[in-house]
Protein backbone atom coordinates (compact mmCIF):
# COMPACT_ATOMS: atom_id res chain seq x y z
CA UNK A 1 0.00 0.00 0.00
CA UNK A 2 2.50 2.60 -1.16
CA UNK A 3 1.54 6.15 -0.33
CA UNK A 4 2.98 9.47 -1.35
CA UNK A 5 3.22 12.04 1.39
CA UNK A 6 4.56 15.54 0.77
CA UNK A 7 6.50 14.22 -2.19
CA UNK A 8 8.06 11.21 -0.48
CA UNK A 9 7.08 7.64 -1.18
CA UNK A 10 6.22 5.65 1.93
CA UNK A 11 5.80 1.89 1.77
CA UNK A 12 2.70 2.05 3.97
CA UNK A 13 0.44 4.83 5.25
CA UNK A 14 1.32 4.10 8.88
CA UNK A 15 3.39 6.38 11.08
CA UNK A 16 5.11 5.54 14.37
CA UNK A 17 4.00 8.11 16.97
CA UNK A 18 6.75 10.20 18.50
CA UNK A 19 7.87 9.13 21.96
CA UNK A 20 7.01 5.53 21.34
CA UNK A 21 10.00 3.19 20.91
CA UNK A 22 11.89 5.43 18.49
CA UNK A 23 15.01 5.89 20.65
CA UNK A 24 17.68 4.69 18.21
CA UNK A 25 18.27 3.80 14.58
CA UNK A 26 17.97 0.04 15.06
CA UNK A 27 14.51 0.28 16.55
CA UNK A 28 13.30 2.85 14.00
CA UNK A 29 14.45 0.46 11.31
CA UNK A 30 12.78 -2.51 12.96
CA UNK A 31 9.49 -0.64 13.16
CA UNK A 32 9.85 0.28 9.48
CA UNK A 33 10.56 -3.34 8.54
CA UNK A 34 7.44 -4.31 10.42
CA UNK A 35 5.20 -2.21 8.22
CA UNK A 36 5.55 1.34 9.46
CA UNK A 37 5.80 3.72 6.52
CA UNK A 38 7.20 6.61 8.52
CA UNK A 39 8.93 6.13 11.88
CA UNK A 40 9.06 9.23 14.07
CA UNK A 41 11.97 9.86 16.40
CA UNK A 42 11.47 10.68 20.06
CA UNK A 43 11.10 14.47 20.44
CA UNK A 44 14.47 16.22 20.44
CA UNK A 45 14.90 19.19 22.78
CA UNK A 46 17.16 22.19 23.14
CA UNK A 47 19.15 20.81 26.11
CA UNK A 48 19.82 17.54 27.90
CA UNK A 49 16.76 16.62 29.93
CA UNK A 50 16.13 13.51 31.98
CA UNK A 51 12.36 13.72 32.06
CA UNK A 52 10.39 12.88 35.18
CA UNK A 53 10.96 10.26 37.82
CA UNK A 54 9.02 7.02 37.54
CA UNK A 55 6.20 6.07 37.45
CA UNK A 56 6.01 7.81 34.10
CA UNK A 57 3.89 5.44 32.03
CA UNK A 58 0.95 3.43 33.32
CA UNK A 59 -1.33 1.12 31.36
CA UNK A 60 -4.94 1.76 32.35
CA UNK A 61 -6.17 -1.22 30.33
CA UNK A 62 -8.10 0.79 27.77
CA UNK A 63 -5.28 3.22 27.11
CA UNK A 64 -2.33 4.67 28.95
CA UNK A 65 -1.46 7.71 31.01
CA UNK A 66 2.06 9.06 30.76
CA UNK A 67 4.23 11.91 31.90
CA UNK A 68 7.61 10.91 30.64
CA UNK A 69 8.55 14.57 30.60
CA UNK A 70 10.30 15.02 27.28
CA UNK A 71 13.63 13.35 28.05
CA UNK A 72 16.17 14.23 25.41
CA UNK A 73 19.93 14.05 25.05
CA UNK A 74 19.62 17.61 23.72
CA UNK A 75 20.05 18.31 20.03
CA UNK A 76 23.79 18.85 20.33
CA UNK A 77 24.42 15.42 21.84
CA UNK A 78 23.13 13.10 19.15
CA UNK A 79 26.00 13.09 16.69
CA UNK A 80 26.39 9.34 16.75
CA UNK A 81 22.70 8.73 16.09
CA UNK A 82 22.67 11.11 13.13
CA UNK A 83 25.81 9.42 11.84
CA UNK A 84 24.12 6.05 11.96
CA UNK A 85 20.95 7.42 10.43
CA UNK A 86 22.81 9.02 7.54
CA UNK A 87 22.95 5.80 5.53
CA UNK A 88 19.47 4.62 6.42
CA UNK A 89 17.24 2.94 3.86
CA UNK A 90 14.06 4.35 5.34
CA UNK A 91 12.42 7.74 5.87
CA UNK A 92 12.33 9.41 9.27
CA UNK A 93 10.29 12.11 10.85
CA UNK A 94 12.29 14.13 13.39
CA UNK A 95 10.16 15.48 16.22
CA UNK A 96 11.47 18.52 18.04
CA UNK A 97 10.42 20.76 20.92
CA UNK A 98 11.53 23.96 22.56
CA UNK A 99 10.62 26.31 25.35
CA UNK A 100 10.53 29.42 23.17
CA UNK A 101 10.35 30.31 19.49
CA UNK A 102 14.12 30.81 19.61
CA UNK A 103 14.75 27.36 21.00
CA UNK A 104 12.47 25.78 18.41
CA UNK A 105 14.35 27.63 15.69
CA UNK A 106 17.77 26.65 17.00
CA UNK A 107 16.87 22.96 17.31
CA UNK A 108 15.04 22.90 13.98
CA UNK A 109 17.84 24.50 12.03
CA UNK A 110 20.40 22.10 13.45
CA UNK A 111 18.21 19.03 12.97
CA UNK A 112 17.23 20.04 9.45
CA UNK A 113 20.89 19.96 8.45
CA UNK A 114 21.07 16.34 9.58
CA UNK A 115 18.75 15.34 6.80
CA UNK A 116 15.57 13.89 8.30
CA UNK A 117 12.76 13.49 5.76
CA UNK A 118 10.36 15.59 7.79
CA UNK A 119 10.47 17.75 10.89
CA UNK A 120 7.55 17.57 13.28
CA UNK A 121 7.04 20.40 15.76
CA UNK A 122 5.76 19.09 19.05
CA UNK A 123 3.83 22.17 20.14
CA UNK A 124 1.48 19.98 22.10
CA UNK A 125 3.11 18.06 24.89
CA UNK A 126 1.27 18.31 28.21
CA UNK A 127 4.00 16.79 30.33
CA UNK A 128 6.34 19.64 30.96
CA UNK A 129 5.62 22.94 32.56
CA UNK A 130 7.78 25.00 30.28
CA UNK A 131 7.78 23.10 27.02
CA UNK A 132 5.36 22.52 24.30
CA UNK A 133 1.71 22.82 24.97
CA UNK A 134 1.60 26.50 25.66
CA UNK A 135 2.14 27.05 21.93
CA UNK A 136 -0.43 24.54 20.78
CA UNK A 137 -3.39 26.00 22.64
CA UNK A 138 -3.04 29.44 21.14
CA UNK A 139 -3.41 30.25 17.44
CA UNK A 140 -1.06 33.22 17.46
CA UNK A 141 1.82 31.45 19.17
CA UNK A 142 1.31 28.37 16.99
CA UNK A 143 1.54 30.62 13.97
CA UNK A 144 4.67 32.33 15.28
CA UNK A 145 6.61 29.18 16.00
CA UNK A 146 5.68 27.51 12.71
CA UNK A 147 6.51 30.59 10.67
CA UNK A 148 9.87 31.06 12.39
CA UNK A 149 10.89 27.41 12.02
CA UNK A 150 9.70 27.23 8.44
CA UNK A 151 12.25 29.88 7.47
CA UNK A 152 15.25 27.89 8.70
CA UNK A 153 14.49 24.32 7.61
CA UNK A 154 14.81 22.56 4.28
CA UNK A 155 12.43 19.67 4.76
CA UNK A 156 8.64 19.61 5.02
CA UNK A 157 7.25 20.81 8.35
CA UNK A 158 4.56 18.95 10.27
CA UNK A 159 2.80 20.68 13.17
CA UNK A 160 1.69 18.31 15.91
CA UNK A 161 -1.36 19.56 17.78
CA UNK A 162 -3.00 18.98 21.12
CA UNK A 163 -6.71 18.22 21.68
CA UNK A 164 -6.50 20.54 24.70
CA UNK A 165 -6.83 23.48 22.31
CA UNK A 166 -10.37 24.85 22.63
CA UNK A 167 -10.43 25.22 18.82
CA UNK A 168 -8.01 22.78 17.24
CA UNK A 169 -9.28 23.56 13.74
CA UNK A 170 -8.33 27.20 14.24
CA UNK A 171 -4.85 26.24 15.46
CA UNK A 172 -4.42 23.99 12.43
CA UNK A 173 -5.43 26.84 10.13
CA UNK A 174 -2.95 29.17 11.83
CA UNK A 175 -0.21 26.56 11.28
CA UNK A 176 -1.18 26.14 7.63
CA UNK A 177 -1.14 29.89 7.13
CA UNK A 178 2.30 30.01 8.72
CA UNK A 179 3.64 27.50 6.25
CA UNK A 180 3.12 24.09 7.83
CA UNK A 181 3.13 21.34 5.20
CA UNK A 182 1.05 18.93 7.24
CA UNK A 183 -0.76 18.56 10.53
CA UNK A 184 -0.30 15.71 12.98
CA UNK A 185 -3.20 15.24 15.39
CA UNK A 186 -3.42 14.38 18.16
CA UNK A 187 -0.94 14.38 20.98
CA UNK A 188 -2.14 12.88 24.26
CA UNK A 189 -5.48 14.04 25.69
CA UNK A 190 -6.47 15.32 29.08
CA UNK A 191 -4.26 15.64 30.97
CA UNK A 192 -5.53 13.15 33.47
CA UNK A 193 -4.57 11.89 36.89
CA UNK A 194 -4.86 8.57 38.64
CA UNK A 195 -4.61 8.42 42.40
CA UNK A 196 -3.64 5.31 44.28
CA UNK A 197 -6.08 5.39 47.16
CA UNK A 198 -4.01 3.16 49.42
CA UNK A 199 -0.99 5.44 49.40
CA UNK A 200 -3.26 8.45 48.83
CA UNK A 201 -0.98 9.76 46.16
CA UNK A 202 -1.08 10.37 42.43
CA UNK A 203 0.56 7.41 40.72
CA UNK A 204 2.62 9.37 38.21
CA UNK A 205 5.61 11.11 39.76
CA UNK A 206 4.61 14.21 37.75
CA UNK A 207 1.08 13.68 39.14
CA UNK A 208 -0.69 14.50 35.85
CA UNK A 209 -0.18 12.81 32.53
CA UNK A 210 -1.44 12.64 28.98
CA UNK A 211 -3.99 10.01 27.98
CA UNK A 212 -3.47 7.84 24.92
CA UNK A 213 -4.84 4.69 23.37
CA UNK A 214 -8.38 3.40 22.70
CA UNK A 215 -10.04 5.70 25.23
CA UNK A 216 -9.00 8.82 23.30
CA UNK A 217 -9.93 7.59 19.82
CA UNK A 218 -13.25 9.48 19.71
CA UNK A 219 -11.37 12.69 20.55
CA UNK A 220 -8.78 12.03 17.84
CA UNK A 221 -11.44 11.30 15.24
CA UNK A 222 -13.30 14.49 16.11
CA UNK A 223 -10.11 16.57 15.94
CA UNK A 224 -9.12 15.18 12.54
CA UNK A 225 -12.68 15.75 11.33
CA UNK A 226 -12.57 19.39 12.45
CA UNK A 227 -9.10 20.00 11.06
CA UNK A 228 -10.01 18.46 7.70
CA UNK A 229 -12.69 21.10 7.29
CA UNK A 230 -10.34 23.96 8.07
CA UNK A 231 -7.13 23.17 6.16
CA UNK A 232 -6.12 21.74 2.82
CA UNK A 233 -2.74 20.32 3.84
CA UNK A 234 -2.61 16.59 4.66
CA UNK A 235 -3.25 15.28 8.16
CA UNK A 236 -1.51 12.50 10.06
CA UNK A 237 -4.31 11.14 12.22
CA UNK A 238 -3.44 9.40 15.45
CA UNK A 239 -4.82 8.78 18.89
CA UNK A 240 -6.06 5.37 19.91
CA UNK A 241 -5.70 3.73 16.52
CA UNK A 242 -5.21 0.00 17.10
CA UNK A 243 -6.88 -1.83 14.22
CA UNK A 244 -7.52 -1.56 10.52
CA UNK A 245 -11.07 -0.41 11.13
CA UNK A 246 -9.82 2.27 13.52
CA UNK A 247 -7.48 3.42 10.74
CA UNK A 248 -10.32 3.47 8.20
CA UNK A 249 -12.40 5.50 10.66
CA UNK A 250 -9.78 8.24 11.07
CA UNK A 251 -9.10 8.25 7.32
CA UNK A 252 -12.81 8.80 6.73
CA UNK A 253 -12.52 11.71 9.16
CA UNK A 254 -9.84 13.11 6.86
CA UNK A 255 -6.43 11.61 7.69
CA UNK A 256 -3.91 10.96 4.93
CA UNK A 257 -1.55 8.93 7.10
CA UNK A 258 -2.35 7.11 10.31
CA UNK A 259 -0.16 7.17 13.39
CA UNK A 260 0.16 4.41 15.93
CA UNK A 261 1.62 4.67 19.41
CA UNK A 262 -0.09 3.02 22.34
CA UNK A 263 -1.33 0.12 20.22
CA UNK A 264 2.25 -1.16 20.26
CA UNK A 265 1.46 -2.06 23.87
CA UNK A 266 -1.62 -4.02 22.97
CA UNK A 267 -0.60 -5.68 19.70
CA UNK A 268 3.22 -5.64 19.73
CA UNK A 269 5.64 -4.11 17.24
CA UNK A 270 3.97 -6.14 14.50
CA UNK A 271 0.87 -3.98 14.97
CA UNK A 272 1.91 -2.11 11.81
CA UNK A 273 1.84 -5.19 9.58
CA UNK A 274 -1.40 -6.28 11.19
CA UNK A 275 -3.12 -2.93 10.67
CA UNK A 276 -1.88 -2.71 7.07
CA UNK A 277 -3.32 -6.11 6.34
CA UNK A 278 -6.60 -5.22 8.01
CA UNK A 279 -6.84 -2.00 6.01
CA UNK A 280 -6.12 -3.86 2.78
CA UNK A 281 -8.62 -6.58 3.52
CA UNK A 282 -11.32 -4.02 4.31
CA UNK A 283 -10.60 -2.01 1.17
CA UNK A 284 -10.64 -5.17 -0.96
CA UNK A 285 -13.87 -6.42 0.60
CA UNK A 286 -15.46 -3.04 -0.10
CA UNK A 287 -13.90 -2.61 -3.54
CA UNK A 288 -12.50 0.79 -2.70
CA UNK A 289 -9.25 2.66 -2.13
CA UNK A 290 -7.72 4.88 0.51
CA UNK A 291 -8.08 7.90 -1.77
CA UNK A 292 -11.73 7.21 -2.26
CA UNK A 293 -12.57 6.93 1.42
CA UNK A 294 -10.41 9.81 2.65
CA UNK A 295 -12.72 12.34 4.27
CA UNK A 296 -15.76 10.24 3.32
CA UNK A 297 -17.50 11.10 6.59
CA UNK A 298 -17.77 14.70 5.37
CA UNK A 299 -19.44 13.99 2.07
CA UNK A 300 -23.05 13.71 3.07
CA UNK A 301 -22.62 16.77 5.23
CA UNK A 302 -20.76 18.91 2.72
Amino acid at each position, binding site marked *: MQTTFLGKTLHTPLVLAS*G*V*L*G*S*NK*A*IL*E*RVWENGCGLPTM*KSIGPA*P*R*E*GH*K*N*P*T*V*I*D*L*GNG*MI*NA*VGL*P*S*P*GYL*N*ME*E*EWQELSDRAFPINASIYGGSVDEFVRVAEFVSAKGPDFIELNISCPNSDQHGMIFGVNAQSSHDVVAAVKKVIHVPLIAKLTPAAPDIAGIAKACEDAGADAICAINTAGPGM*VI*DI*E*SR*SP*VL*AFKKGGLSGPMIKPIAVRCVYDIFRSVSIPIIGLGGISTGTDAIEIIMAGASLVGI*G*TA*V*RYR*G*ITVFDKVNKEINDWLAAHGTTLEEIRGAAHREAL
Partner: protein
Amino acid sequence: MITQLMPAMVKVAERKIHSPEFATLYIDEPIDFKPGQFVMVWIPGVDEKPYTISHHSPDRFGITVEAKGIFSRKAVSLGPGDKIGIRGPFGNGFNMGNGHKRVAVVAGGCGMAPLAPLVEAFQTDNGPETLLIQGARSKSFLLYPDRFTAKAEICTDDGSKGYKGFVTDILVQKIKALPANLAPGFDMVYTCGPEIMMAKVFEICEAHGIPCQVSLERYMRCGFGVCGACVCGHAVVCKDGPVFGSKALRTMADFNTRALLKTGRSVPLNEYAAWRCQ
Protein backbone atom coordinates in the same frame (compact mmCIF):
# COMPACT_ATOMS: atom_id res chain seq x y z
CA MET B 1 -4.43 -8.39 42.67
CA ILE B 2 -1.09 -7.67 41.05
CA THR B 3 -1.37 -6.98 37.32
CA GLN B 4 0.53 -5.15 34.62
CA LEU B 5 -1.84 -2.20 35.02
CA MET B 6 -1.89 0.20 38.00
CA PRO B 7 0.57 -0.67 40.74
CA ALA B 8 -1.07 -2.70 43.50
CA MET B 9 -0.10 -1.49 46.96
CA VAL B 10 1.05 -4.49 48.96
CA LYS B 11 2.66 -4.92 52.34
CA VAL B 12 6.19 -6.10 52.83
CA ALA B 13 5.59 -9.30 54.80
CA GLU B 14 9.19 -9.97 55.74
CA ARG B 15 12.64 -8.64 55.10
CA LYS B 16 15.64 -10.91 55.07
CA ILE B 17 18.99 -9.17 55.32
CA HIS B 18 21.66 -11.16 53.50
CA SER B 19 24.55 -8.80 54.05
CA PRO B 20 25.08 -5.06 54.42
CA GLU B 21 24.46 -4.75 50.68
CA PHE B 22 21.64 -7.20 50.05
CA ALA B 23 18.16 -7.76 51.40
CA THR B 24 15.20 -9.71 50.16
CA LEU B 25 11.70 -8.28 50.59
CA TYR B 26 8.89 -10.85 50.68
CA ILE B 27 5.32 -10.12 49.63
CA ASP B 28 2.49 -12.45 50.57
CA GLU B 29 0.52 -12.16 47.35
CA PRO B 30 0.14 -14.48 44.44
CA ILE B 31 1.72 -13.38 41.18
CA ASP B 32 2.06 -14.98 37.75
CA PHE B 33 5.63 -15.99 37.24
CA LYS B 34 8.24 -17.50 34.97
CA PRO B 35 11.89 -17.46 36.12
CA GLY B 36 13.59 -14.39 34.69
CA GLN B 37 10.57 -12.09 34.80
CA PHE B 38 10.58 -8.85 36.73
CA VAL B 39 8.20 -6.43 38.46
CA MET B 40 8.15 -2.65 38.68
CA VAL B 41 8.46 -1.62 42.33
CA TRP B 42 7.00 1.74 43.33
CA ILE B 43 7.85 3.59 46.53
CA PRO B 44 5.45 6.55 46.51
CA GLY B 45 7.27 9.84 46.65
CA VAL B 46 10.56 8.19 45.73
CA ASP B 47 10.65 6.40 42.37
CA GLU B 48 9.74 3.15 40.60
CA LYS B 49 12.31 0.63 39.37
CA PRO B 50 12.47 -2.87 37.91
CA TYR B 51 13.42 -5.86 40.10
CA THR B 52 13.66 -9.50 39.22
CA ILE B 53 11.45 -11.91 41.10
CA SER B 54 14.06 -13.82 43.05
CA HIS B 55 11.73 -16.01 45.12
CA HIS B 56 8.41 -17.46 44.14
CA SER B 57 5.79 -19.76 45.61
CA PRO B 58 2.04 -19.83 45.01
CA ASP B 59 1.27 -17.20 47.65
CA ARG B 60 4.56 -15.45 48.27
CA PHE B 61 7.25 -13.89 46.19
CA GLY B 62 10.37 -11.92 46.90
CA ILE B 63 12.76 -9.45 45.34
CA THR B 64 16.39 -9.17 46.28
CA VAL B 65 17.77 -5.66 46.29
CA GLU B 66 21.36 -4.53 46.24
CA ALA B 67 21.70 -1.20 48.06
CA LYS B 68 23.30 1.06 45.52
CA GLY B 69 21.62 4.39 44.96
CA ILE B 70 18.78 6.41 46.45
CA PHE B 71 15.98 4.03 45.53
CA SER B 72 17.62 0.73 46.38
CA ARG B 73 18.88 2.04 49.72
CA LYS B 74 15.34 3.10 50.53
CA ALA B 75 14.06 -0.30 49.43
CA VAL B 76 16.39 -2.33 51.67
CA SER B 77 15.37 -0.12 54.59
CA LEU B 78 11.72 -1.21 54.31
CA GLY B 79 10.40 -3.68 56.82
CA PRO B 80 7.26 -5.67 57.61
CA GLY B 81 4.09 -3.59 57.19
CA ASP B 82 5.63 -1.02 54.89
CA LYS B 83 3.73 -0.67 51.66
CA ILE B 84 5.09 -0.71 48.15
CA GLY B 85 3.39 -0.69 44.77
CA ILE B 86 3.93 -3.59 42.42
CA ARG B 87 2.97 -4.00 38.79
CA GLY B 88 3.92 -6.91 36.59
CA PRO B 89 5.24 -9.41 35.99
CA PHE B 90 6.93 -8.14 32.84
CA GLY B 91 9.36 -9.60 30.35
CA ASN B 92 9.77 -12.95 28.71
CA GLY B 93 11.69 -14.95 31.33
CA PHE B 94 14.08 -17.77 30.58
CA ASN B 95 13.29 -20.41 28.00
CA MET B 96 13.71 -23.56 30.10
CA GLY B 97 13.73 -25.79 27.05
CA ASN B 98 12.32 -29.23 26.75
CA GLY B 99 14.27 -32.28 27.81
CA HIS B 100 17.56 -30.54 28.53
CA LYS B 101 20.06 -33.10 29.94
CA ARG B 102 22.79 -30.81 31.20
CA VAL B 103 22.76 -27.05 31.71
CA ALA B 104 25.13 -24.51 33.24
CA VAL B 105 23.98 -21.49 35.21
CA VAL B 106 26.54 -18.72 35.56
CA ALA B 107 25.74 -15.97 38.08
CA GLY B 108 27.68 -12.84 38.88
CA GLY B 109 26.78 -10.81 41.98
CA CYS B 110 23.15 -9.73 41.99
CA GLY B 111 22.73 -11.72 38.77
CA MET B 112 21.95 -14.62 41.07
CA ALA B 113 18.50 -13.10 41.70
CA PRO B 114 16.80 -14.06 38.41
CA LEU B 115 18.75 -17.31 38.15
CA ALA B 116 17.85 -18.66 41.58
CA PRO B 117 14.24 -19.61 40.74
CA LEU B 118 15.53 -21.14 37.52
CA VAL B 119 17.98 -23.34 39.40
CA GLU B 120 15.17 -24.34 41.77
CA ALA B 121 12.93 -25.21 38.85
CA PHE B 122 15.67 -27.36 37.33
CA GLN B 123 16.33 -29.13 40.65
CA THR B 124 13.37 -31.44 40.30
CA ASP B 125 13.34 -35.16 39.64
CA ASN B 126 13.08 -34.77 35.89
CA GLY B 127 15.22 -31.67 35.62
CA PRO B 128 18.56 -31.52 33.82
CA GLU B 129 21.88 -31.94 35.57
CA THR B 130 22.58 -28.36 36.64
CA LEU B 131 26.02 -26.88 37.07
CA LEU B 132 25.85 -23.64 39.05
CA ILE B 133 28.82 -21.29 38.86
CA GLN B 134 28.42 -18.35 41.20
CA GLY B 135 30.79 -15.44 41.48
CA ALA B 136 30.94 -12.18 43.43
CA ARG B 137 33.32 -9.46 44.55
CA SER B 138 33.80 -11.14 47.87
CA LYS B 139 32.14 -13.58 50.22
CA SER B 140 29.45 -11.25 51.64
CA PHE B 141 28.22 -10.52 48.10
CA LEU B 142 27.45 -14.19 47.45
CA LEU B 143 23.66 -14.47 47.46
CA TYR B 144 21.66 -17.37 48.89
CA PRO B 145 24.59 -19.55 50.04
CA ASP B 146 22.34 -22.32 51.40
CA ARG B 147 19.47 -22.18 48.94
CA PHE B 148 20.23 -24.97 46.49
CA THR B 149 20.54 -28.71 46.87
CA ALA B 150 23.10 -28.96 44.10
CA LYS B 151 26.67 -28.04 44.88
CA ALA B 152 27.77 -24.73 43.41
CA GLU B 153 31.14 -23.68 42.08
CA ILE B 154 32.01 -20.50 43.93
CA CYS B 155 34.46 -17.79 42.87
CA THR B 156 35.23 -14.42 44.40
CA ASP B 157 37.31 -11.61 43.03
CA ASP B 158 39.24 -11.41 46.30
CA GLY B 159 39.35 -15.11 47.03
CA SER B 160 37.43 -14.65 50.29
CA LYS B 161 35.49 -17.76 49.31
CA GLY B 162 36.01 -20.43 46.67
CA TYR B 163 38.14 -19.96 43.63
CA LYS B 164 39.88 -16.57 43.33
CA GLY B 165 39.02 -15.39 39.85
CA PHE B 166 36.25 -15.30 37.29
CA VAL B 167 33.23 -17.45 36.76
CA THR B 168 34.17 -17.59 33.10
CA ASP B 169 37.41 -19.39 33.95
CA ILE B 170 35.39 -22.09 35.67
CA LEU B 171 32.94 -22.26 32.80
CA VAL B 172 35.71 -22.89 30.26
CA GLN B 173 37.28 -25.43 32.54
CA LYS B 174 33.98 -27.29 33.00
CA ILE B 175 33.22 -27.31 29.30
CA LYS B 176 36.66 -28.75 28.57
CA ALA B 177 36.31 -31.31 31.34
CA LEU B 178 33.23 -32.80 29.80
CA PRO B 179 33.82 -36.06 27.93
CA ALA B 180 34.49 -35.34 24.25
CA ASN B 181 31.62 -37.56 23.15
CA LEU B 182 29.13 -35.21 24.75
CA ALA B 183 28.71 -32.53 22.13
CA PRO B 184 27.64 -29.91 22.92
CA GLY B 185 28.58 -30.49 26.50
CA PHE B 186 25.77 -28.29 27.81
CA ASP B 187 22.35 -28.01 26.23
CA MET B 188 22.13 -24.43 27.44
CA VAL B 189 24.12 -21.95 29.45
CA TYR B 190 22.08 -19.40 31.45
CA THR B 191 23.79 -16.31 32.73
CA CYS B 192 23.16 -13.07 34.55
CA GLY B 193 25.60 -10.61 36.01
CA PRO B 194 27.67 -7.66 34.85
CA GLU B 195 27.17 -7.26 31.11
CA ILE B 196 30.87 -7.70 30.41
CA MET B 197 30.76 -11.05 32.19
CA MET B 198 27.70 -12.12 30.22
CA ALA B 199 29.40 -11.08 27.00
CA LYS B 200 32.37 -13.24 27.90
CA VAL B 201 30.07 -16.18 28.68
CA PHE B 202 28.36 -15.67 25.33
CA GLU B 203 31.73 -15.61 23.56
CA ILE B 204 32.82 -18.84 25.24
CA CYS B 205 29.52 -20.49 24.33
CA GLU B 206 29.79 -19.36 20.73
CA ALA B 207 33.31 -20.77 20.54
CA HIS B 208 32.07 -24.12 21.80
CA GLY B 209 28.83 -24.21 19.84
CA ILE B 210 26.71 -24.02 22.99
CA PRO B 211 23.50 -22.00 22.98
CA CYS B 212 23.19 -19.48 25.76
CA GLN B 213 20.70 -17.07 27.37
CA VAL B 214 21.61 -13.80 29.08
CA SER B 215 19.46 -11.43 31.12
CA LEU B 216 20.06 -7.75 30.34
CA GLU B 217 19.42 -4.54 32.24
CA ARG B 218 18.70 -1.11 30.79
CA TYR B 219 17.05 2.02 32.19
CA MET B 220 13.30 1.34 32.22
CA ARG B 221 10.17 3.42 32.38
CA CYS B 222 7.03 1.63 31.19
CA GLY B 223 8.21 -1.96 31.50
CA PHE B 224 5.95 -3.09 28.67
CA GLY B 225 7.59 -2.12 25.41
CA VAL B 226 6.22 1.32 24.61
CA CYS B 227 8.40 4.15 25.85
CA GLY B 228 11.63 3.03 24.19
CA ALA B 229 13.80 3.91 27.21
CA CYS B 230 15.30 0.42 27.44
CA VAL B 231 16.23 -0.34 23.86
CA CYS B 232 19.50 -2.12 23.20
CA GLY B 233 20.11 -2.12 19.47
CA HIS B 234 16.92 -3.39 17.86
CA ALA B 235 15.84 -5.13 21.06
CA VAL B 236 13.30 -3.79 23.52
CA VAL B 237 14.78 -5.15 26.72
CA CYS B 238 11.65 -4.95 28.90
CA LYS B 239 9.44 -6.68 26.38
CA ASP B 240 11.53 -8.81 23.99
CA GLY B 241 13.78 -9.57 26.98
CA PRO B 242 15.19 -9.16 29.53
CA VAL B 243 16.37 -12.63 28.51
CA PHE B 244 17.97 -12.96 25.09
CA GLY B 245 19.31 -16.06 23.37
CA SER B 246 22.41 -16.46 21.23
CA LYS B 247 20.59 -15.74 17.98
CA ALA B 248 19.38 -12.31 19.11
CA LEU B 249 22.74 -11.49 20.69
CA ARG B 250 24.65 -12.12 17.48
CA THR B 251 22.96 -9.17 15.75
CA MET B 252 22.28 -6.98 18.77
CA ALA B 253 24.04 -3.67 18.31
CA ASP B 254 24.93 -2.13 21.70
CA PHE B 255 25.13 -5.45 23.57
CA ASN B 256 28.13 -5.10 25.87
CA THR B 257 28.98 -1.73 24.37
CA ARG B 258 26.39 0.98 24.88
CA ALA B 259 23.26 1.90 26.80
CA LEU B 260 20.85 4.83 26.92
CA LEU B 261 20.89 7.16 29.88
CA LYS B 262 17.64 8.54 31.28
CA THR B 263 17.97 11.43 28.79
CA GLY B 264 17.98 8.91 25.95
CA ARG B 265 21.62 9.63 25.24
CA SER B 266 23.61 6.64 24.11
CA VAL B 267 26.82 6.19 26.15
CA PRO B 268 29.44 3.48 26.65
CA LEU B 269 28.41 0.84 29.16
CA ASN B 270 30.86 1.94 31.85
CA GLU B 271 29.50 5.46 31.71
CA TYR B 272 25.97 4.05 32.00
CA ALA B 273 26.94 1.95 35.03
CA ALA B 274 28.58 4.92 36.74
CA TRP B 275 25.50 7.10 36.23
CA ARG B 276 23.21 7.61 39.24
CA CYS B 277 19.56 8.66 39.48
CA GLN B 278 19.04 11.84 41.49
